[in-house]
């Protein structure tokens, strides 16, 4: 990128705008990613996305590793919510290899996914706070998120990356007393929700700043491939957990909350309401989880071959549809895996349209309201 000389006079048409970098080193951006804004006065005239700062070539690396080795690699694709990667990948492999997953393992997977979802939503609360300058929100939300990570650590041994799923089930059974601790934690989180409401969602200044920012209509959302809570906040009732139930979601009773205004505030509120539903799902799982084996044993993992075929497996993550397009040619390694990150279309394509004529104050609010997570499109 060429920097423009600062001493050029303003008379030239070419220098009517000036460049402003949001990222990569900027507190307003989520992760290592950059938007270059061409500013005209205080309005944004043009936006360029500059991804690739987190590109590690996962898709190439996965072709070089065994089917089971990849499980250690893929959680790193989405850092705030790594479990969706493992589950989506395992579901794809199981479908291709024809492995039946025991009921208990499916319940454990749902528990892990929903806990990860709550953790990711709490993280996005902190994003709201950080973007608008309400620094008490990150401090509270991330502190509470840590209790979830503690439970994860007890269950899987890892705080952030769990590497817990395995083709055919999960690696370890739930330890004794863990479920009781989980339900205690859910009580605690529920008692915290009114405080978050008072601090964040009922805050008049925050409402003033986020209402009407970044309006996204239902048609635009569908056209631009925007999924997950952002789509639902625009009024489209689409949740993979309901529409194409995977694991045991069809046995659980939950609602899809509706906000439907399509602006940044309703996207925040959507996440807040869905958190309540996740707590509800977890309560049911604690009650309903059956006894039985936690994993279908697969033969020697070093010789584990997946029959040739293609499959697209997807999971509803906190950011939208997280998909794994898996191609196997019957070898011990995947032939090709394509990872569909939910932020791709919003962060790299729709942002350029949405941010035009926006003010610089609204940019961080927009980024955090769409919950753009750079690692999942950089891969």
């Amino acid at each position, binding site marked *: 990128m060429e920097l423009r000389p*600062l001493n050029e006079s303003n008379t030239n048409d070419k220098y009517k705008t*000036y*460049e*402003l970098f949001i990222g990569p080193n*900027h*507190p*307003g951006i989520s992760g290592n990613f950059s938007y270059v804004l061409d*500013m005209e006065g*205080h309005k944004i005239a043009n936006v360029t996305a500059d991804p690739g700062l987190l590109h590690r070539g996962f898709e190439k690396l996965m072709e070089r590793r065994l089917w089971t080795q990849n499980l250690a690699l893929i959680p790193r694709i989405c850092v705030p919510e790594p479990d969706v990667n493992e589950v989506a990948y395992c579901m794809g492999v199981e479908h291709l290899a024809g492995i039946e997953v025991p009921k208990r393992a499916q319940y454990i997977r749902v528990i892990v996914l929903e806990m990860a979802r709550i953790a990711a939503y709490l993280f996005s609360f902190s994003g709201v*706070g*950080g*973007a*608008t*300058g*309400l*620094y*008490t929100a990150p*401090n*509270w939300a991330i*502190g509470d998120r840590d209790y979830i990570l503690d439970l994860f650590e007890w269950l899987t041994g890892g705080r952030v990356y769990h590497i817990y799923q395995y083709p055919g089930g999960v690696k370890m059974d739930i330890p004794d007393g863990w479920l009781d601790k989980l339900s205690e934690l859910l009580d605690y989180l529920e008692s915290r929700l009114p405080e978050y409401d008072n*601090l964040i969602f009922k*805050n008049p*200044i*925050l409402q*003033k*700043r986020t209402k009407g920012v970044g309006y996204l209509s239902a048609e635009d959302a569908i056209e631009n491939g925007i999924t997950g809570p952002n789509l639902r906040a625009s009024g489209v009732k689409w949740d993979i957990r309901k529409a194409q139930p995977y694991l045991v979601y069809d046995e659980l009773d939950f609602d899809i909350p509706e906000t439907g205004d399509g602006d940044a505030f309703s996207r925040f509120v959507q996440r807040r309401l869905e958190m309540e539903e996740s707590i509800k799902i977890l309560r049911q799982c604690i009650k309903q989880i059956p006894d039985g084996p936690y994993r279908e044993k697969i033969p020697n993992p070093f010789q584990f071959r997946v029959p040739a075929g293609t499959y697209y497996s997807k999971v509803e993550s906190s950011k939208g549809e997280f998909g794994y397009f898996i191609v196997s040619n019957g070898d011990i390694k995947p032939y090709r895996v394509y990872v569909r990150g939910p932020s791709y279309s919003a962060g790299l394509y729709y942002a350029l349209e949405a941010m035009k004529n926006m*003010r*610089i*104050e609204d*940019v*961080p609010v927009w980024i955090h309201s769409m919950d753009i997570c750079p690692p999942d499109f950089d891969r």
Partner: protein
Amino acid sequence: MIFLKLLEGIGVGLLSLTVGLLFMGLARKITARIQRRYGPPVLQNFIDVFKLFSKQSISHGFAFDLGLVAGVSALLAAVVFLPMGQINLFPHNSSLIMIIYLMTMAYLGMAMGVSSSGNPNATIGVARALTMMMGYELPFAAVIFSVYIFAKTGSLTNIVAAQGGGFLNWNMVRLPFGFLAAEIALQGMLGEKPFDMAIAPAEIASGPMVELGGKYLGFGMLQHAVGIYLETGIMVDLFLGGASNIWIFVTKQFELFFIALLINAVLPRFKIEDGVKFMWKVPLLLGVIQALIVVL
């Protein structure tokens, strides 16, 4: 005689720096407790300033150096004229107008300095700071007007003297609307939320401070420290009846600062135009009502 006065002046300057930095440290501690944290040591800001002055620094030209030095020195000059308890160096010269004039000088100096760094973020930050200044100066002017009319004097020493003789004589009680308006304006003056658009890190990467490093950031911190001392000090003199000695003075200052902190901890920041609109709506209205009450 002049030499003694000079020494006294330096003493007052050091006092204001010390108290200001202490307030900043306490602010970090109190904010941390609201955020369920332990917080840094209270003297952390002294360590930070010392460290900043021991760092290598890059200058961006003469205007950059001059602006930052002017910022601190104008505020220090203003502090000298502030009556604080028994310390009152110029009892016959403590004109409020002059103090406010020197304060504005300080902010303009800072603005000149950081704009010459050439960073667009700094320029946006300065533009926001000056817009915000326009926002809070207007209600504050209305308040000062009513205090002037009420006390029939422009000297802070005399205003303090007029409030003597108990709590009920304080302007806070006598001019309640004016006090409220001034409190809100103080929030803007201190640059606390919801009026801290000038330094919004998530939007413009800490605004005016974006190119400041080392000694220059140290000057910025010192300016903020003296600014806190001066602004809360003016409020104490105007509304809380001054003080009989320096300890009571600092305690009263801290009370005002504490309220500002609590508001700061639970509110996000306004957009710049919303902030100015708010300033011109609520506090200005309160100020005008107060002025009308006083005049009639």
